[in-house]
Structures are given as C-alpha cells and as structure tokens.
C-alpha cells in the first residue's frame, strides 16, 4: 500500500460529521463578520484612488513583495522580524497544507476516489508541514517571551489599555493548535507503528471496513514517519502506551486541536488577527497620497467621536496591529504629550470594531478611548510623518489626525494659540496678523529691486512664504536668497501683497475651508502672472504647492520672456470638491511621486535650484568653506517629498563636510513646528521640546560647527532651542542659503 495521508484516522463518524458541521458554522460566522467589516468600510467617504492600470498593479505587486512577503519595515528590529517571519511563514504553509489536505480528502478522495497526498508528494508535504509547525512554534514562543517577559514599551500602551487580551487569545489558541497538532501526529505515528507490527496490514482493503482502511492507511503512513521528523520524535513519548490508550488520547487531542483551530478562525475577523487580511488588503490596494477633502455636506462626527473618514482610512485603521513602531519614533510621544499615533489608530479601530461587531469585548471603554482621541491628544501631532515611514502595514496616521482635527475646528475646540492665527489668516492672509502690504518689506533692505511677477513675466516665480516674509530672523535668509538669485542672474519675481499663506499648515490644522480660500486666492494671483516654474524656500509651501494645488506644468516650456500665459492652474472654483479639480494624484500610500527623471520640476525648493545653479555653472564657488556641519532634513522636504540629496550636494559643493546625525533622511526628527504646532502654545509638563532633543542630537556629534537647516521654521525653532540649552557658543544654526552665499561670494552679506 502506498503511504498516503491517514485523514480521519481514529475519528468516529459522529466526530467527523460534527467537525464538518462546526466547520460550516465557522465559515458562516466568518462570512457574516467579513460582510459587516466590508459594510463598515463602505460607510466611509470616497477616496480618490488612482484608476486601475498596469502601473497600479505593478506598484501593488512591489508593495506586496516589500511589505508582506519580506516585511521590510520590521527588519530594523531583528527580534520582531524573526518572530514575524516564523509566524507568517509557519501560518501560510500550514494554512496551505490544510487547504491541500481538504482538497485531497473532500474533493479528490470523496468525488474521484483518488488521493493526492500519497507517495512522494505526501512525504514532502509531511516534511514541509513539520518544518512550518516548528517555525510557527518558534515564532509563538518568541512572541510570548517578547510580549510577556521582555515587554518592550512600544507593545504596551499607557494606563487603561494595559495588555491587549487579543494578543493572549491569539497566541494561546495558536500555541494550543500547534502543540496539539504535533501531539496527535505523534500519537498517530506511534499507533501506526503498532498497527503495522500487528500485521493488520495483511488484509486486503476489500475485506476491511472503513475503519480498517483508515488503520491500514495509518500503518502505511507510519512507514514514512521519518519524513515527519517532529511527529516521529513526539511518537517516542507514547511508546509505552497500549493501542486503546493511544486511540483515546488521540481522539481527545484531535478534538482539542480542532476546537482550538476553529476558535482561532473565529477570532480572526474579530481580533487584530484580522490584519492577516486587512493589512494585506491595505498594502496591495491603491490609495491617495492626498488628504481627503472635507465636503461641508458630510457630517463631521459620527456617534460623537468618529470623524468623517474615507473607506480607505477605515480599512487601514483595521489593519493596525498595535505594534507600536510609530509610537517609538513619534516626537509628540517622546516629548511627553498624550498623543501617540498608535493610540489614535488603535482607539479609532476600537470604535470601528464596535460598529462591525457590537458584542466585541473591548478592553477599554469608549470613554477611555477618547483620551487618545480627545483634543489634547489630537492637537499634539506635528504631522511629521515619522510614524508613517515606520508603519509595517502602511497606515497614514497624519491623514487620520487631520480627519480628527476637522470636527474640532468645526466645533471651535481649537488648541491654545490657534484662534488668533486662523483669524489673522482669514483677515490678512498671513499668520502674523500683519498688513498684507508689508509682505514684501524685506525687499527694502536690498540694493536691487525684486521683479513684481504680477506685472511682468518671470521665469521663476518665487513663492516666498509667511515666516520667510514676516519673521525677522527668517527674513534675513530670504534676503540672502534674493542676493544669490541675483548673483546667478536668475530671472525671478515675487507676487508682493498678492501672495498669501500657502495653506499647508492650515490644512493640517483641519481648517479645510480656510485652506481652500487661501489656495484659491493664491491660484488667482498665480494665474494672472506669467511664469515657468515656482521656487520656494519654505518646505511647507513647497509641499502644498507641489502636491495639493493641482498646478500643471506650463507648456510648452518656452523662453522666459514669453508673453503668453503658458501655465494653467486648476482647482480654482471653490465650489467644486478639490479632489475632482486636482490633477491625478501622484503615487499611492503616502509615498510622494518623485520628480520625473531629468525633466525640470514645476515646483522647486531653493536647495534644488541652488544645486541646479551650481551644476550648470551659473553659481561658482569662490571660497571653500571647510566647515564640519550636520544637516537637518525638514519633514515636509524630506519625508513628504523625498528631497534629501540636493541640500547635501550643495553643502558638499561649497566645501562643507556633512556629518550625519543618527536620525537623518527619512528618519529625521521633527523640530516641533509642523502641523500648525508652531502656532500653538506649549503646554506645561512637557519632558523636552523636540527642537531641544534635536539640537542635543547635533551637539552629541561633537566638533560640528553648524546645524544646517533648509526651512525657515527650523531656523527659528532650533535657534530658540540652542538658546534655551545655552549652547550658543558650541553650535550655530544656519540656513543652507546663508552658507552658500558665503561660499559663492564673500561680498554677499549674509546671516551671521
């Protein structure tokens, strides 16, 4: 007899039937809950995802490989990575094995009377499943040790949430399934060996009843027991037992195994184990890199807590596993605020889970979840996206925070300090509450006039920005940039009083109506001017102009003096939902689209333009500076737009030796100004301001002379932090432009 899988050996008919009935019940339950999940997602609003096409599919496959098969974002923590590999691949193979076994028995055997799992295939099958079981077991043990012995802080959550009961249930059931699996395998092998030696096998199948056939199969399978190394080893434990004890023990354990497996299946859709499916979906499905638009007709809060979310946001929230990688890197959390990105996502998931599954036994009451969703927490976020580049399942925390902020704005539940700023922006178009006529006052100190782009055509339209126009310190850098542009012979101009705050941070605050107003005002000014490209020194303006204004490239790119209006701006009609008017959103899953190859970008950050001017020889370095510096990646330039190299290239070109801080490029640490936080008052009780943490990081490098920035808000924040730390004589905070100015011409007066 060819060894084949001894399916249902020793299982009486009633058990077999009962098991099928239970299995059917489990399937019905799962289908029912999945339908409820899908309904819950469908309650979300529309999200402008890219249309399905080859490119979208390709990106989906890439993400599948990167984030699912070899979860790249877990690699920074080898322990977690190995744990997850064991769990993931163990589970995948065992699930696959179960599927094959089902097909073998319930399709091939039942319908066609042939076996799939026999001979060589069966032997390999047994081996692979044993290895998978071991992998799973290792993963489980590692997980248990980590969660209950090592207890890294990112797995725990403050106060009330305590340890999630979900982890205990999932790990417990899986351990039970795995261990009983090996035990019944061992029992079956031992029994098979006994049956083989008892020569029951002599009978021909025709003479045996169903039970006899199964005994014979078990006996035959025992002859290939070495292919199940773990089962074979386990079998040795049972050597002393007689046949009936073996059979009894096997039946009991078989039931435990089956029930635990069913229980785990039931748990999948109602616990965080659902990330098996939701994380998978979240990774492969396309998403918009845009913030969801807020339609005034959409109710801002659901059930008093939940803001209006897109279906995609609802899905991604349910993909969260509370791994806490986001929390570890969050500057607001590290500074001591109530906010953690994990808390926000996890608490949201709790609210949604009650929608899906009202009987869900949440550890925390809704009121407790609100601690993470209340305004203190929600206003603490810097929208720096440090969390997003860490998230293994691609949750977009910052969009979620903005979604929570919108109803707060609607209810006038603003953070301290915001009210005046928003009113200033409504009234004057700048956060400083200053006269719009004073916006270009910084040009007065220059020995040359700056072109008025409202009146004459320019090649580069310089969108100056608020801090850069009104803040005394940042203005000096702005003047320096003008001097550099002049030295390079650049054809540029500014919008003078017609420029308004670009609205990036207003949008992050959640005041979408004000953002639309500011955007429309700026678009009106941009439309009536003639230009080829936009340049700005403010990363916040840069991001919103580049990605959220729906600006289209002027075509064709003609000579700078072209009198026709080559560009067109869309999205000007305030009545249309912005997303519809916007150009196709770039990329997906929060990953910004890269500039298209060598084609000149439409919106430049000054550091990119500086590098271009140096490369093309329009700027020449007169004096190498020979300084040891470190460079801080601004969130909205780096993580948001992946501009990492240009500022560094400029620094190297002018003779600076760039020493990297431990947290750099996509892991850069926010200065604490983003997301409108620069306008909010600090609350007492904060452990340490992010800017100070960052300055300390720069100081810890030793013998670095300058902390170089490329953002006016960084300049202000870090200069204050250096002062607060009393480190003025050890570290100088300076803008890239100021260093460049010193290098290209010692004559250009620049910030000290």
């Amino acid at each position: 007899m060819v060894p084949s899988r001894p399916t249902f050996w020793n299982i009486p008919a009633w058990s077999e039937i009962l098991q099928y009935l239970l299995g059917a019940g489990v399937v019905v339950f799962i289908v029912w809950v999945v339908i409820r999940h899908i309904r819950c997602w469908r309650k979300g609003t529309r999200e402008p995802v890219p249309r399905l096409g080859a490119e979208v599919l390709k990106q989906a496959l890439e993400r599948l490989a990167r984030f699912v098969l070899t979860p790249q974002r877990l690699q920074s923590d080898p322990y977690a990575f190995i744990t997850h590999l064991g769990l993931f691949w163990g589970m995948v193979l065992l699930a696959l094995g179960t599927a094959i076994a089902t097909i073998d028995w319930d399709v091939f055997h039942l319908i066609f009377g042939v076996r799939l799992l026999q001979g060589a295939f069966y032997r390999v099958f047994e081996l692979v499943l044993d290895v998978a079981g071991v992998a799973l077991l290792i993963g489980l043990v590692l997980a248990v040790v980590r969660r209950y012995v090592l207890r890294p802080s990112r797995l725990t959550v403050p106060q009330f949430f305590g340890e999630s009961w979900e982890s205990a249930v999932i790990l417990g059931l899986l351990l039970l399934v795995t261990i009983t699996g090996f035990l019944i395998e061992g029992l079956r092998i031992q029994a098979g060996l006994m049956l083989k030696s008892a020569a029951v096998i002599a009978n021909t199948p025709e003479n045996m009843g169903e039970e006899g056939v199964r005994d014979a199969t078990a006996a035959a399978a025992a002859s290939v027991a070495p292919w199940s190394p773990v089962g074979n080893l386990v079998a040795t434990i049972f050597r002393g037992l007689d046949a009936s004890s073996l059979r009894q023990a096997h039946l009991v354990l078989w039931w435990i195994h089956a029930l635990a497996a069913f229980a785990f299946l039931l748990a999948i859709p109602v616990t965080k184990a659902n990330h098996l499916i939701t994380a998978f979906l979240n990774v492969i499905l396309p998403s918009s890199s845009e913030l969801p638009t807020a339609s005034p007709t959409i109710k801002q809060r659901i059930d008093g807590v939940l803001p209006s979310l897109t279906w995609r946001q609802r899905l991604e929230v349910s993909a969260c596993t509370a791994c806490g990688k986001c929390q570890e890197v969050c500057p607001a959390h590290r500074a001591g605020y109530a906010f953690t990105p994990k808390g926000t996502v996890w608490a949201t998931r709790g609210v949604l889970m009650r929608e899906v599954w009202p009987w869900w036994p949440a550890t925390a009451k809704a009121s407790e979840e609100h601690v993470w969703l209340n305004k203190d927490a929600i206003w603490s976020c810097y929208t720096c996206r440090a969390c997003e580049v860490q998230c293994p399942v691609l949750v977009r925390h910052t969009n979620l925070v903005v979604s929570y902020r919108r109803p707060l704005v609607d209810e006038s539940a603003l953070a301290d300090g915001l009210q005046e700023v928003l009113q200033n922006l409504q009234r004057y178009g700048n956060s400083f509450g200053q006269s719009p006529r004073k916006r270009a006052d910084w040009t007065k100190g220059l020995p040359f006039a700056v072109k008025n782009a409202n009146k004459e055509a320019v090649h580069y339209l310089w969108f100056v920005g608020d801090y850069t126009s009104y803040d005394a310190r940042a203005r000096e850098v702005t003047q320096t940039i003008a001097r550099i542009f002049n030295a390079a012979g650049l054809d540029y101009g500014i919008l003078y009083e017609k420029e308004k705050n670009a609205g990036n941070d207003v949008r992050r605050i959640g005041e979408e109506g004000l953002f639309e107003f500011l955007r429309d005002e700026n678009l009106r000014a941009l439309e009536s001017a003639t230009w080829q490209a936009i340049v700005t020194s403010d990363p916040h303006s840069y991001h919103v102009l580049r990605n959220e204004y729906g600006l289209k490239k002027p075509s064709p790119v003609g000579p700078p003096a072209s009198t026709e209006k080559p560009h067109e701006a869309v999205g000007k009609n305030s009545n249309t939902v912005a997303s519809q008017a916007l150009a196709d959103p770039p990329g997906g899953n929060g990953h910004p689209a890269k500039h298209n190859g060598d084609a000149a970008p439409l919106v430049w950050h000054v550091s990119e333009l500086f590098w271009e001017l140096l490369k093309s020889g329009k700027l020449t370095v007169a004096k190498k500076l020979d300084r040891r510096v470190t460079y801080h990646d601004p969130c909205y330039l780096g993580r948001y737009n992946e501009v990492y190299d240009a500022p560094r290239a400029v620094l190297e070109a002018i003779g600076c030796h760039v020493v990297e801080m431990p947290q750099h490029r996509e892991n850069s640490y926010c200065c604490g100004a983003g997301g409108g936080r620069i306008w909010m008052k600090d609350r007492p009780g904060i452990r340490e301001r992010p800017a100070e943490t960052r300055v300390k990081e720069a100081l810890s490098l030793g013998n670095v002379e300058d902390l170089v920035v490329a953002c006016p808000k960084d300049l202000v924040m870090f200069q204050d932090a250096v002062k607060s730390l009393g480190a003025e004589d050890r570290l100088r905070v300076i803008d890239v432009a100021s260093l460049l100015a010193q290098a290209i011409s010692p004559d250009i007066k620049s910030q000290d």
Partner: protein
Amino acid sequence: MIRRIVVPVEVYRGHITEATREALVAARTVGNGVGEVVAYVYGEPPAEGTDVLELADRIIVLEDGQVGTPVAMAQAKLLRERIASSDVDLVLVGSSSWGWDVAPLLAGFLSAPLVANCQVIQHAEDVLKATCRICAGKLLVDVEITNKPTVILLLPGSYAHREVQPGKGVMERERVPASDWDARVEFKGWLEPEREDIDITQEEILVTVGRGIGQQENLELVEDLAKTLGGAVCGSRPVVDQGWLPPTRQVGKSGMIVKPKLYLAIGISGAPEHVEGMKDAELIVAINRDEQAPIFDVAHYGIAADLFDVIPALKEALVARRQEA
C-alpha cells in the same frame, strides 16, 4: 472764564482712586485758581488718604442709604440736578472702570457732550481745547469745547505729576432722599480672582528678564528691583524654559500678552515672539548690552549698558527718591 468744575470722587474699596486725584489735579490746572473745583463724594469719605480732597474748593459729601455703593448709574443720576442748576462748565472724570460708566451716563443725563480719551486740556482766551488720544494711541484729535457743561473723561498719566495749589477744602454734607436713588442696578459685593501665582497680565509694572541675565542666581537682583518698583518679575521663553521662572510668568506669543504701564526689559534681545507679547505696554524701557538689539526698536527708552551695572544704580536712585518724598 471757567466758573465751576465738578469732579465726582471714586472711592474704591476704602481708597480715593489715583484717577480721581488726577482729575482733581486737572481741574485745578484748568480752573487756574479762578474756577471753583467741587468734589462730590458718595457716602462717608474713607478714614485715610482724604488729603487728596483738599485739592477741591468745596467737598460735598452725599449721605444716606446706598449712596456709597459703587453703582455708577445711580451715582451719576444724583449729580444731574446738582450740576444742571449750578453753573458748572466742566465735569472731569478720571479713567477707571467706574469713570467709564459715570462720565458717559452723566453726559447723557445732562444732555451734555462727552469728550472721552482726553489726554490733555488747554484753556486759553476762554476757549477750552482738549486733545484726545484714540486708535490705541495712533491718532490724536484736537477739539474745541464750547458747550457748557461738558463732561471730560481723562486718560491717566498727563496730570499725575503736575504741581498744583490746594483748594479751599471746605466740606459740606447733603442728605440724599432714598427716592432719588435709582435702584435698578444693585451692587452685591466684590469677587476676588482665584489664582495660585500672580497674574502678570494684571500687573501695572513688569520687570522682564531674558537670557542676558546669565544664571538663575542673578534673578535675585532683578526681583529686588521689581520689589522696589512695586512690580512683578516675568521672563522671556528661554528663561522660562530653563525653569528659572514658572510658565505663568512667560511673556510672548506662546506665553502671556501683557499691557502694563511700565515694561522694563532687562537682557532681552527682542525676538519677535517676545515683542508680540509686550509691544502694547504703555512705557517700555530696555536695558541691553547690545546697542543693536531689536528690543530698542520697540522700547521708548533704552540703556545700552551692562545690566549688572545699571540695576544697582537704578535701585539706589529709586530708594533715594522715595526717601525724598
């Protein structure tokens, strides 16, 4: 020729207010020894500090019932007939919470003009001229006053330190029938603010320290000066960040917005964030070693010197002046 000037006297919790004293000084100045200065006191004058009343020629104490309770409307109404029937050319009221009610109500009752936010009054050739400071001090208006009587609400400061001759100081008493008291507004009592630390937004004199102070120990020097001046110490953000002062004492955009009478900035460079919080102070004096410090662009007076030299000298001068007085 000014015949008679009336000054309603405000007694706030047992003291005749500074605003009233300034109004009396102004009345003496404008009356120029000719016009009779009449002070109306509501209820029994307080036991102490009544020498201020000697600036008036006649002191009329209105007595009985609720007359002494600070109900501006009823108190103003008591003067309607008294003023209308007695050749009064001018009513001078000092700026205070009480004066802000009394002056316009009295003008209304008398159907007389009210000149508010008046900085200074000049009297030449029988023409009364007043200069009003409006729009947060950004605009001045000169007006000519012809109507008699006219009610003037004086801004504080201009008459605080004029030297004037005292008046005759004759005191009279008048009983007020209960029926004359307008009881539609009733004073029920004072409510004290609850606070742990002092509220720097309510202080009239603030001495503010910046990073220039160097170290926490030096704060004592500044606290000493503040005490001498009768003010409170506050700080810029770096000082508060250091924990040298509690956050309730932080001036600036991310701290408190203050508008004291005197803002003495010591070792403050004048970062915009800070200036935002104090630029509307009535008088800003800055002490900073750096002559180029931007604080000197907002300050009214500046001293470019080492604070450790200036502060002791300043304290000495203050103490000396106090002993003189």
